């Protein structure tokens, strides 16, 4: 009966909501009934209440704006550098073959632990967070850009050559559109890494936006605020990923 009324996608969404709110309800009940000490765990309602009060009357919106600014700045740097270097690595085969493995190896190592170096150069400022985070976004964009150009169907290039297109026109009308979906995959990955890095570094270094708020609340042992910060950071991450997925869907369409 339910299946005839509700579309499968809506049914899935409802089930997900039921699962999420069921879990949150269980935590709420556990805290209210005293099964878990309030010193360790704030009830979800308390966390949302604190988050709302910070959004309305506190400086949560300002902190979110700082985080968004850091993400946007890091993405801009990563995009410009990533596209340029990715194109060079594809255009010059020897350079590509030489540095692709080096970049991948560097990316696989725990580079984020080198953040004190950036603190020395840029101080405890957003600039340190932006520059280091942009590295995490740049590498996937470089590798995906190179791979995207490599995967362009050679027949398309032959068609362009037979039409006597100039190099600029070939790039603009054939190479770039053909490589765009795969390049966007790199953006998606890059933005995901930037998001994780910005929020993580803000928390560790205690500078910038939402991550810093979480860190300060933890130092003050404000349990409600810790969980509010956690909820806010998680929601921000989820919102970003949702937007990236939507954008990728639209690009591929």
């Amino acid at each position, binding site marked *: 009966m339910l299946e005839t009324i509700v579309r499968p996608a809506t049914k899935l969404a409802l089930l997900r909501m039921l699962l*999420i709110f069921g879990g949150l309800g269980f935590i709420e009940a556990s805290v209210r009934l005293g099964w878990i000490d309030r010193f360790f765990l704030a009830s979800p309602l308390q966390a949302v209440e604190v988050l709302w009060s910070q959004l309305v009357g506190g400086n949560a919106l300002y902190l979110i704006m700082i985080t968004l600014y850091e993400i946007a700045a890091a993405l801009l740097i990563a995009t410009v550098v990533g596209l340029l270097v990715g194109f060079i690595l594809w255009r010059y085969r020897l350079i590509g073959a030489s540095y692709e493995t*080096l970049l991948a190896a560097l990316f696989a190592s725990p580079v984020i632990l080198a*953040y004190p170096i950036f603190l020395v150069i840029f101080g405890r400022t957003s600039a340190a967070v932006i520059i280091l985070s942009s590295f995490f976004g740049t590498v996937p964009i470089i590798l995906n850009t190179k791979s995207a150009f490599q995967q362009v169907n050679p027949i398309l290039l032959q068609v362009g050559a037979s039409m006597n297109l100039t190099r600029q026109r070939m790039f603009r009308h054939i190479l770039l559109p053909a490589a765009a979906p795969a390049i966007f995959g790199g953006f998606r990955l890059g933005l995901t890494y930037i998001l994780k890095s910005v929020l993580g570094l803000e928390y560790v270094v205690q500078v910038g936006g939402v991550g810093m708020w979480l860190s300060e609340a933890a130092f003050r042992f404000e349990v409600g605020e810790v969980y509010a910060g956690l909820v806010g950071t998680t929601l921000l991450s989820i919102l970003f990923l949702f937007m990236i997925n939507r954008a990728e869907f639209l690009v591929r369409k």
Partner: protein
Amino acid sequence: MNLEVMQKTSASAAGRARAPAAVQLFTLIVFLFSWQMIGKTGSIFAELFPPITDILQSLWIYVSTPILIPHLAASLYAVLGGLLVGALLGIPLGVIFGSSPSFMQVTEPIILYLAVVPKIIVFPVFILFLGIGTHSKLAVGAIAAFFPIALLTIAGMREVRSVFLDVARTLGASKLKIATKVYLPAIAGYIFTGLRIGLGASVTGALLAETKIARAGLGFMIVEYYGQFRMADMYSLLLLIFILAALANWGMKALFSLLLPLPRSSQNFGEFV
């Protein structure tokens, strides 16, 4: 004549294969030489770039004396413990989730969205529950390792072809037999890849947590040296961590490729690390 052409072709192919390695070596030499010169002359950020020789000297002290052993032990406990807990939770949950497509349909987006949240931000919660000792770092390592392991196990479960299950059932195989003879060989490669990626995630998570609040550990030492502005010691410690992480990754890769070939499709899981 043909032999000569073939020899020339094979020589040029070998040359082409060696060329990237030569460029990499050249880049490394130029990088090290430039750093050494900057360090010696103090022309750019004098305190920030100590000479390479100072860094290597410091590294030698780490490997030849027991100075770092308590910190290495604390970090290894957090990282390997984190990997173990992550695997103990991730593999069974991955199997359960992966074996139920309808349940997976409901939960998959939730898991994928949560996988992208930076795990270090859960550290204050672990501090509340477990204190500032090693266990809270182990917990960060565990949650960081959990997602790649669970997600790759789920991916492996999805790859199990239903025809294999049908054949096993037709032959009257018990549930245990199906699990050990059909599922396990099919998903082992994915689990191994998950463990390898999980190790990297655990290293990053646990050591990053150590840089925040700790009393021991390699991450703690990095921040200590940074606080004391002992840059050569900090660089050598970072170098040591990179070398150890690379060796662990390489060792796991070699071990797993000996045990079974890794699935190609399980390589593109970077975003969940």
